[in-house]
């Protein structure tokens, strides 16, 4: 029956990740954005929290905890509250690990999972393609069956940590449906380009990656003979990205709210003016609305029910919401919102990307 109460476990996880975000991520966010890298050791600290290893089965060296998409959404929100660039980096290994947990064959799991259970190791997924009409209904990157294996051709962008990842998950069109492939970075024909220069997410190294007649064995297809439910993997990614957006929006809302209560104009706090107060009220409503839509889609995915429409709409809603919230946060701060002494301009740059992002995180 309808219930919105978190379990005790979920509350504990939420509190743990929230403290980590407060103590470690948020204070590092501005420098990370300016320098284009995160502090050394931060990824390891994230790993210590179990962000990657908790769901890896014990037989492969992990903690074997049951994955829950709802819990994943809660965790992603807290990390996003800290900083989206850093969060995407800490979560990057999951881009390979979680699809393996979802659909990997025993051989595929045995090959990759143990090393990811030990310490932070970069991994990535190549989903987005650099074209104006990119969406996930049809991929321009193709996997053509040949000699019992596949030949991969195409170009991807927004591939996080591609340079330092030894292996990546590549989504490509195989006939009339998308399929996922496990590709070693060192395979002939794989070229990782220059680091991309983006408006936001500056602390996260992303790359264009091209595949030129990359020959893959049949065993490289995720799920082997049986294949994988790529749509489900994409849905799990939509929940992750949407929840990161909700977390960031919450951060921006809180910052604008606190500022508005401090800042005086015409003898009162600007928050005491309806023009500002209503902006803040709308933020609060829309953040809650987006979170509920995401939780519902996450819950459907946990029930293994069809959830594409819900996940697409929830992520879309959150992406539009976070942009508006970040934009309004800048607006509430006025000129102070435009200078880099405050974090809101960073949030606005990061927020704009969510309508473009797909497959860059997973829960």
């Amino acid at each position, binding site marked *: 029956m309808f219930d919105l109460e978190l379990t005790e476990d979920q509350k504990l996880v939420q509190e743990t990740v929230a403290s980590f975000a407060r103590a470690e991520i948020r204070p590092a966010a501005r420098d990370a954005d300016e320098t284009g890298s995160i502090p050394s050791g931060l990824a390891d600290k994230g790993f210590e929290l179990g962000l990657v290893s908790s769901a890896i089965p014990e037989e492969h060296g992990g903690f074997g905890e049951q994955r829950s998409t709802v819990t994943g959404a809660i965790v992603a929100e807290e990390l996003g509250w800290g900083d989206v660039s850093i969060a995407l980096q800490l979560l990057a290994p999951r881009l390979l690990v979680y699809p393996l947990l979802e659909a990997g064959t025993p051989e595929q799991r045995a090959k990759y999972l143990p090393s990811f259970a030990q310490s932070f190791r970069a991994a990535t997924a190549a989903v987005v393609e650099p074209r104006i009409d990119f*969406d996930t209904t049809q991929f321009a990157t193709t996997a053509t069956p040949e000699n019992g294996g596949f030949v991969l051709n195409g170009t991807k962008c927004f591939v996080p940590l591609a340079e330092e990842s030894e292996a990546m998950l590549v989504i490509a069109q195989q006939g009339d449906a998308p399929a996922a492939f496990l590709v070693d970075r060192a395979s002939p024909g794989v070229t990782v380009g220059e680091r991309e220069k983006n408006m936001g997410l500056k602390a996260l190294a992303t790359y264009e990656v091209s595949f030129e007649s990359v020959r893959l064995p049949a065993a490289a297809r995720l799920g082997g003979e049986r294949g994988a439910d790529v749509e489900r993997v994409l849905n799990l990614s939509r929940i992750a990205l949407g929840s990161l957006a909700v977390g960031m929006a919450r951060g921006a809302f809180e910052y604008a709210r606190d500022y508005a209560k401090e800042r005086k104009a015409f003898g009162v706090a600007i928050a005491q003016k309806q023009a500002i107060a209503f902006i803040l009220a709308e933020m609060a409503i829309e953040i809650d609305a987006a979170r509920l839509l995401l939780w*519902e889609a996450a819950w459907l995915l946990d029930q293994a029910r069809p959830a594409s429409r819900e996940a697409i709409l929830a992520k879309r809603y959150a992406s539009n919401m976070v942009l508006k919230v970040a934009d309004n946060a800048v607006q509430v701060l006025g000129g102070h919102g435009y200078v880099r002494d405050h974090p809101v301009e960073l949030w606005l740059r990061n927020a704009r990307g969510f*309508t473009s992002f797909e497959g860059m995180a997973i829960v």
Partner: protein
Amino acid sequence: MIDFELSPAIQNSRQMIHMLADQVMRPISREYDEREHEKPTEFLNMMWSVSAGSSFGNAKDSKDSALASGSVKEGNLASCVNIEELSWGDAGLYLTIPNAGLGGAAVLAAGTPEQKQRFLAPFKGGEPKWGAMAITEPHCGSDSAAIQTTAVRDGDQWVLNGTKIYCTSGLMAAEKSDGFVVVWATVDKSAGRAGIKSFVVPAHTPGMKVIKVENKLGIRASDTAMIVFEDCRIPLDNILGSAEVKTSTEGFKGAMATFDATRPLVAASALGIGRAALDFAREALERAGITIRYGLAPSKLTAIERDFMEIESDLHAARLLTWRAAWMMDRGKRNNLEASMAKAKAGLAVTRVTQKAVEFLGPLGYSRKLLLEKWMRDAKINDIFEGTQQINMLIVARRILGYSSKELS
């Protein structure tokens, strides 16, 4: 544990009510929009016979365990789901259904056990009855603290004087049944908010008179009354809550708590109208060969697809906010913030959804041959009554900022 599945009991009642909405309400929907001020007697009698004393259409006492859906406390959520279905059928007709209504909600929120028994028990049988709530006055709406209707104690009676407007089902409650009207009045004008109390005035009480029934944009099947109280005398124990005027505004806050229960219900009605328009528009578009394709690149989407996805998720977001507010009520959690969030969002969402749906259908949408234009007219009231969108935004703003009504007005 997070769970978005409605209980089997709620799902069952939803299914039944949906059938009723589809087969009984929709066929007479246009007729009672056109024949404003006439009552669908057959429908009302039928609804009374199936619903008297049962769960749907009312705020629920969270302490009342004897709910239709069993021992689990989910009465407010059940009401929200049921009201959405009824309003999917017809929001105006839904509002005319005989029950204790908003007056009942006020009794539940502020009445003693004895009062609940005395005023609400008659709604479990006999002839159809209506309860109504009279707050708004010609000079004040959202600013309920400015109420001028007076209640003066005279021996063992209260004497009411004043004029109330926009009282939903006021005619039925005051004169056409043995129901009651809950009237907000001040016992001490100098005390401001602290002096505002609510009183139960039984139907046919001398001195209470309906002098006008409004002509409206929508929800025309429902009567909206202007009621005058002229030396209207009621028993002393018809006051809800304490008669004492405290220096604090406790009493007024208690009265305002009624809205925490009723705002999710109004939001639920908005959802029903919005879903009616959304369902209809989707089918009409499909018949015209236009299906909504989800998950496409921005450059591939048509304007209709983009708009449709926006209103669809807006409406569903409003639904989840509404269910949350009702669920909190059921669990005995304070939901003042969440109830206002739901109401503000749902009122705005339904207004947009219905206006967009008319646009989608081009010239057909504007025609009275279809119900779309009616739904658009019906929808707008949800953005206004039970606290306008703006008043609810103000409440949300005060709560998130920790401001009193003095600090943020």
